[in-house]
């Protein structure tokens, strides 16, 4: 088995998808000659040509609007937003058109667009390069929102997203791009919409996704060693569709749950998970579902991001609060 980074897995998924279907095209800022600022599209323009991999003018709304037009022409566009903080100019196109077009055509017109967005912090970047905008997309009906935490899932979920006839916001945890995993590509993991129990446990369920999955797993290991308890770790993998069944089953068994994410707490994914799980598992819960998240502040300067982001210590502290409840 080969050691593969998430970046390489994403690059391979795009290559394989483009070979499998010549209607798959990539577009965005610097995705061509440069191969993207994170090199996720590295080498693809050279091999597939200037229109299959298009360097666009610097205009995110334009990139999204043009992708919608390309989808109407029968293409399967995979636009890239260079960073989370620069996906906002495209929000109107996403909310008003991408998410609604199928519904507005009474189901006649598919919108197979996959919008790739490197997201999240922890890389010491300057402002606007470390945001976690998932709530904006998850609240928008008509979209699917997918985020991998491993190289294998990165490959498989991106391939599935490109095959999906619904628009997908594909959130790539940029701080995990260079993390390696033993995997042979191509690989097929569970379908979009299924969460995955990465580590079984009995005392409490840790829910995470994307960049926080590693933190949750490390916290679970630490909890084991320190005798805090046996923690189950669930990787959501897709935020919409949300795998409520797996969450409720786990919470019903452990009776305790903590949701971890980088995004601010207020109306972050933790709120939705807590509300749903509490409704479905009310009589099984021994403590409220607690949230361990970024603070309700704009993303701070790099020298302060470590304090803002949930780390193993803060996760364990929140776990302890839940156990003590």
């Amino acid at each position, binding site marked *: 088995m080969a050691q593969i980074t998430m970046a390489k897995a994403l690059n391979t998924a795009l290559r394989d998808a483009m070979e499998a279907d010549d209607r798959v095209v990539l577009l965005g800022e610097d995705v061509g000659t440069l191969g993207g600022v994170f090199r996720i599209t590295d080498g693809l323009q050279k091999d597939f040509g200037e229109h299959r991999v298009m360097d666009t*003018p610097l205009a995110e709304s334009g990139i999204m609007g*043009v992708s919608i037009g390309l989808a109407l*022409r029968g293409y399967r566009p995979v636009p890239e937003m260079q960073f989370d903080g620069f996906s906002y100019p495209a929000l109107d196109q996403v909310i008003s058109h991408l998410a609604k*077009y199928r519904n507005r*055509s*009474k189901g006649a017109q598919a919108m197979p667009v996959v919008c790739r967005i490197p997201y999240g912090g922890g890389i010491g970047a300057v402002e606007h390069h470390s945001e976690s905008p998932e709530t904006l997309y998850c609240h928008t009906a008509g979209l699917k929102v997918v985020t991998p935490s491993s190289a294998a899932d990165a490959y498989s979920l991106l391939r599935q997203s490109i095959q999906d006839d*619904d628009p997908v916001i594909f959130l790539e945890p940029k701080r995990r791009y260079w993390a390696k995993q033993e995997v042979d590509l191509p690989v097929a993991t569970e379908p979009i919409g299924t969460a995955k129990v990465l580590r079984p446990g009995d005392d409490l369920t840790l829910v995470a996704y994307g960049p926080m999955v590693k933190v949750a797993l490390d916290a679970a290991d630490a909890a084991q060693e320190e005798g805090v308890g046996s923690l189950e770790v669930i990787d959501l993998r897709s935020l919409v569709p949300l795998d409520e069944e797996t969450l409720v089953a786990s919470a019903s068994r452990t009776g305790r749950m903590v949701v971890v994410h980088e995004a601010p707490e207020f109306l972050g994914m933790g709120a939705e998970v807590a509300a749903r799980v509490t409704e479905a598992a009310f009589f099984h819960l021994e403590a409220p579902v607690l949230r361990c998240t970024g603070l309700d502040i704009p993303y701070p300067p790099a020298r302060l991001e470590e304090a803002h982001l949930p780390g193993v210590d803060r996760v364990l502290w929140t776990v302890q609060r839940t156990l003590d409840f």
Partner: protein
Amino acid sequence: MDHSDEQVRLLAEDGALLEHDTYEVDLSEDGLRDLYRQLVVVRRIDVEGNNLQRQGQLGIWAPCLGQEAAQVGSARALGPEDWVFPSYREHGVIYVRAGMEVLRVLALFRGASLSGWDPQEHHLGLYSIPIGTHALHAVGYAIGAKWDGAELCVAAYFGDGATSEGDTNEAFNFAAVNAAPVVFFCQNNQWAISVPLSKQMAAPVYKRAFGFGFPGVQVDGNDVLAVYAVTKAAADRARDGGGPTLIEAITYRLGAHTTTDDPTRYRTVDELDTWKAREPIGRYRAFLEKAGLFSEELERDVQAEADRVAAEVRAAVEHLPDPPLSDLVDHVYADPPATLRSQWRRFEEFEAQFASEA
């Protein structure tokens, strides 16, 4: 901002045919007569829309009164293989391209659908209310078509106010950089709801194109022949790989912005009268008369056709059933999330009570 000096004109206000060194009309006599029929029918459909709204059959209506020449003339210049991305006032364009499919538009304004047609069927994008946004869809489609080597052009319809939106300008730039086969058709009807041109922009619309590196042309939007000729030239140029053109059709919204709007709050009777005198159908009829193409018989046929269409529109709208509740969820996703399915099951449980009660 009228710039009549700069406008392409083929018909004088009295209907006399004018010479033009660049543009000419290639329509047969029947074609010229048919243009008259379409103008009259479109106006009648529009009147019917207003009536149906007043009678509560439609929730709202956006009249195209006064803009018939701009819409019919430009739509006539496009072929079936071409695509159209309309805004929300292009009823005339829809009728010319898709005939009675215009009923879909009435269903939309009734509140029974959100457009509800298949864009692929008549090569017709969905009605687009968020100003400026659909110009980018047109450009995206055109870029894809060019990649495919398809021989077609894509027309994007929008208004004077739409030129202020970032999206419209991004569309101009994407089209220019990609030499995309797009005809940007701006109906400059002098107003964006209550905002006049002078508060909307500081230069005539068509000049915007030069700054992005492609041609712009201003045409008398109430001269159906000039609109047809200018659009045809731009469409041919686009299909031949010449890239985009921006057409500014100078016209006027003779009606309210929508049936909820009260134009007397922001524009003068004098202004309205000036433009009423310039309305496009009378001028075209005068041309037909001068050209010996008009006859009482033609008028009778055309009015009969208009009556027939109006009756069909009225009947269809009055008998349009409300959409089923299942329309709420059935078309949101190809493959709906489990959470939406369970939410819907719960909603059906709730609805079931009343069924049982009934």
